[in-house]
């Protein structure tokens, strides 16, 4: 027993947090990269300028990003049910978490891509590189550091979002703090969960900053 609850409960919630963060990050990235690349190449002055595609992609991203996460969770419940078969639990939380983080990551990655010197793209084109080659051989390697820092920022945001996943029974450290700490007036437990979250955030940032070098 630690702070009035069983140690296994704490371990379980840390595990749930990791489960939600890691999986929704992976799914989020799978969606974010194509979106970011689409934005990057179709923007005005981009390699494959296309105002219609750019505007549609950009608008969809903005719309999703405008919805507060707690609203998003309940709003897309039918979609969650359709995909995972249930509306509650850690796995069900992955759907809103992914939906939440993908557009955010897309913007962060887009920013990193835009930081690449235009001269690099010009050099690529002067070599006769195809659009895909320009992206994969020139732009992505050159923006690697920026992308990793962006993903790090996104991951920290994602960790914060998992706390709200408690609303759909997603569990996790944040949920633990709310149900056992806040609602039972268990301040020591609250404090220690906050400390755990601080440690996790520090670790994520340290790993990200190091990898970006």
């Amino acid at each position, binding site marked *: 027993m630690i702070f009035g609850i069983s140690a296994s409960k704490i371990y379980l919630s840390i595990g749930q947090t990791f489960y939600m963060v890691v999986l929704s990050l992976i799914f989020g990235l799978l969606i974010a990269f194509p979106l970011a690349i689409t934005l990057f190449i179709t923007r005005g002055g981009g390699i494959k300028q296309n105002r219609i595609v750019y505007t549609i992609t950009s608008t969809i991203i903005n719309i999703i990003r405008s919805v507060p996460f707690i609203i998003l969770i309940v709003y897309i419940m039918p979609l969650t049910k359709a995909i995972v078969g249930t509306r509650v639990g850690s796995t069900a939380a992955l759907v809103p978490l992914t939906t939440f983080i993908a557009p955010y990551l897309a913007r962060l990655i887009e920013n990193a891509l835009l930081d690449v010197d235009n001269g690099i793209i*010009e050099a690529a*084109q002067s070599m*006769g590189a195809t659009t895909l080659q320009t992206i994969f051989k020139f732009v992505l*390697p050159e923006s690697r*550091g920026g992308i990793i820092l962006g993903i790090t920022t996104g991951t920290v945001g994602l960790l914060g979002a998992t706390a709200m996943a408690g609303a759909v029974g997603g569990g996790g450290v944040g949920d633990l703090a709310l149900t056992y700490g806040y609602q039972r007036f268990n301040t020591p437990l609250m404090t220690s969960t906050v400390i755990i979250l601080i440690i996790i955030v520090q670790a994520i940032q340290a790993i990200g900053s190091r990898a970006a070098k």
Partner: protein
Amino acid sequence: MITFENISKTFRTKTSTVEALQDITLKIEKGDIFGVIGFSGAGKSTLVRMVNALEKSDSGTVIVNGKDISQLQRRELRSFRKNIGMIFQHFNLLESKTVFQNIAIPMQLEHWPKDKIKTRVQELLKFVELEDKETALPKQLSGGQKQRVGIARALALNPEILLCDEATSALDPRTTDSILELLKKINKDLDITILMITHQMNVIAQVCNKVAVLEKGRLVESGSVIEVFGNPQQETSKGFIRTVINDKLPETVKEYLRNYKEPQKILRLRFDGKNADEPIMSLAIKETGVNISILYGTVTELEETVVGFQTVQITGSQAQLDAAVKFFEEHKVPKYEVTL
């Protein structure tokens, strides 16, 4: 090799229109080192980018190797570009990759086998004298070394044409010289036609055999370097050439010449390989009886020949002056009237 025919290009933004190029017609022959000079904003960057279609003209045609490049399909354009190397003012190397990887890129895009790439990269490193930098990252290199990597990368696929976009503008004078030497070697040993744009006249003087002067999108002058340097017609050209060969007479000398009452002729004479061996001036004095005083003289090397320019005051009777002019004509000394 490269022909620009009546090329025009206008850039429009919401607030302004810039006529970057207006009706440019130019011809670059195989084997040339062709220099295009102009101030920033003269349109030279736009012009050089039309050769590999990084920029497209609004009207006119660009013909490279007999092909009108505006007619090329996207796929044809890509393979066409592989025959044209390009180097840049800011090198545009991938900072995340080593020297070796940077040079290897054009070959990787072509899916060359690894061992063939390795051989070729080492060959190129040797050519640009950077054998010991294979594993270095661009940030560990000096500007001159970065440009050498850029050059090696541009030469990877054995292009026929090399485009140089202000390739020496970010380099110090000594490094500039070494890069220019390298470009000469590329032109001679590898038989690659070079089109370079620059705002530095000394670059043109050092390596080019032909020059075109651009001003505000217009071609104001073009021709062989010796011709244009010997007798620039336009103020812009004169200004550029003065940065290399000073031909400006001091004001006091001009004042003296203006006040000279006797018959006189002020000429600028050009001596180069063909007429430099004979003692032409003293012969002229002996044969025609004129007096010649040298007001200003300079010797320089252009198109790999020593060229001397002498600004002289010739005095004597009108008949003697005419005889002297005829003498210079007979001895094929190019001469230009100097206006005070």
